């Protein structure tokens, strides 16, 4: 599986997610999807599945689809089950000589469709062992309905259902650790990544996930300029800060073995990631210093645990 990554070569491949979709400028989702699908071997076909969400309504608005491959969307909470159904059909039809060639099955859901409403469907599909990849594009809130909190929303973040007021200031709970939960499913491959820099990490992990037999899961950070409240041109910068502050560490777990993918040259303070985002603005008001301290302590504790697990 050792492959030399060459961005120029990769982007010269015909795109599987075409331009003209209706995602916002500065949105991470399109970059994530294009990046994951780019990892498919040119000759292989794919069936792509989406949970209902920003991505789905922006990429398949009748009568236009942005996907060059076959695509199915059915509902919000069932994209994993849907993907598993296509894979089941493939196995049956292949066995009966009614379908030829290699077809890969990749499903994309936001954190709403993955951490929350689609969690059962995801867990079931992973446990059953379908040969599929589930990709969560994690933008840390229900963005399609207008920025409501999810279990993936980090503590203190302002959303429309965890607003900042005199009594409450943003979300009260920590972010659910879904990547960990997926590792606990004992599936062959789990990765946490982001469309960072030249997309090498995203590409390499997507390739592994797609071409590892069995159920694989990728959690991909996917910033949202509307929900996170940052200038749309700063997408790449926000991702870099998430990784360099260790708020969103990059790692993979292959057959249960943890491996850290990226060690920041200098671990930046969490406030560097928080400051450019409007959703955390209240954390910088006088008297709220404890919030930044709490956020830093949480990230440090998680980071130490990851270092320990990965032996880094």
């Amino acid at each position, binding site marked *: 599986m050792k492959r030399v990554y060459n961005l120029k070569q990769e982007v010269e491949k015909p795109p599987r997610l075409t331009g003209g979709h209706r995602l916002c400028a500065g949105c991470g989702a399109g970059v994530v999807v294009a990046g994951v699908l780019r990892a498919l071997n040119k000759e292989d*076909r794919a*069936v792509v*599945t989406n949970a209902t969400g920003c991505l*789905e*309504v922006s990429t*398949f*608005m*009748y*009568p236009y*689809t942005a*996907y*060059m*491959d*076959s*695509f*199915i*969307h*059915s*509902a919000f*909470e*069932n994209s994993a*089950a*849907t*993907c*598993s*159904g*296509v894979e*089941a*059909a*493939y*196995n*049956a*039809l292949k*066995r*009966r000589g*009614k*379908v*030829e*060639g290699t*077809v890969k099955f990749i499903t994309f859901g936001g954190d709403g469709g993955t951490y929350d409403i689609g969690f*059962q*469907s995801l*867990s*079931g*599909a992973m*446990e*059953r062992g379908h040969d599929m990849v589930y990709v969560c594009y994690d933008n840390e809130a229900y963005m399609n309905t207008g920025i409501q909190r999810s279990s993936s929303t980090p503590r203190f973040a302002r959303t429309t259902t965890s607003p900042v007021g005199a009594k409450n200031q943003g979300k009260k709970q920590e972010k659910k650790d879904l990547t960990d939960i997926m590792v606990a499913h004992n599936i062959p491959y789990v990765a946490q990544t982001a469309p960072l820099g030249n997309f090498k990490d995203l590409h390499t992990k997507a390739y592994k996930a797609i071409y590892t037999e069995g159920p694989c899961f990728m959690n991909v950070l996917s910033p949202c300029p509307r929900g996170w409240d940052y200038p749309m041109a700063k997408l790449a910068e926000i991702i870099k800060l998430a990784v360099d502050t260790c708020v969103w560490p990059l790692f993979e777990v292959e057959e249960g073995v943890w491996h850290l993918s990226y060690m920041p040259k200098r671990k930046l303070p969490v406030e560097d990631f928080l400051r450019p985002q409007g959703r955390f603005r209240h954390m910088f008001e006088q008297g709220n210093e404890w919030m930044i301290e709490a956020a830093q302590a949480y990230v440090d504790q998680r980071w130490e645990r990851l270092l320990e697990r990965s032996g880094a």
Partner: protein
Amino acid sequence: MSDRLSGNEAVAYAMKQINPDVMGAFPITPSTEIPEYFAAYVANGEVNTEYVAVESEHSSMSVCIAAQAAGARAVCATSSCGLALMYELLYVAASCRLPITLACVNRALSGPININHDYSDSMGARDSGWIQIYAENNQEAYDNFIMAMPIGETPAVRLPVMTCMDGFITSHAVENIELLETETVRTFVGTYDPENYLLKKENPLAVGPYDISAYYMEHKVQEAEAMKAAKARILEVAAEFEKISGRSYGLFEEYQMDDAELALVLMGSTAGTAKAAVDKLREQGVKAGLVKIRVFRPFPCEELAQVLAGPKAVAVMDKSEGFSANGGPLFAETRSALYDLKDRPYVINIVYGLGGRDAKVEDIEKVFKRLADIVATGETGPVYTHMGQRSKEDMV
């Protein structure tokens, strides 16, 4: 060939004979035995279906939708709350025009939780775009399942089909049944060869778009037209089925309706009880008759009106409560069907048998007695009543 099978086993056996590509399997009383029997067929290598034992009915229907869209023939079975959990996806299946076949073993919906028979589950799904065919007994449950795919998969129809049987009464009672030879079934059902599907190499397909108001209405009208077209196809398939089985089916069954003055309209296994009551009353010179609705979706409106133009009084018996405060769903459809008649019969609604409350021959006789009184007095009395509950409001 003759055999003695429960309704569940009969349907599982039909599935085995068909050997579908994919089954979404999740247990719920009283349909549980269907995926159990089928799992045994898979384990014994009697079928080569991809058996997907999911974690919920929601996923079972999701798997069926995806598999059928991918070009496979998909089946599943469920009851009650399982069907309710599928509710959102029933609409998706129908609107994507995916001819999935679902064996619905009818059971009361929660709450309170109850595992016995009534139609509150499938009646709740009556507007989801699925064809619904109801069985009176094991034989019909078997036959209806075999007819489902040739109906649903026809290009002019392309709608999912729900074949319904009464929980426990039909699903668990063992009866003598005539089974067809597997080869006969396979030839009759044929292969599933959709024009477009996800796994088709030559032409990628996108299914399940965001459909804005500029298109949504056209798509729903197409779906409505498909449901209209289903009626003729159901009769066509029934005629073909008669050739291989000798058993004749229509949109509904008429029993002693030629000269009936008092008639019942009802569904499912109660028809057996009602036929016994009709026979008894006929012996006493009462011109009683019965219409057993087989196809509820599409609803046989014109055909039913024709048959009900004869009797003087009609009781529609609903085995589900629609909470419209104006009668059950079968009543609403039937009374609407009668509106265009020049001379309409008296028509009343009796909601009975909820949560498995028994309806005996004597109960049906009471209903006919009430119809006779209505004809004699010209007074309908309360149009919508319940029967069989322990309360003074029992009007029959």
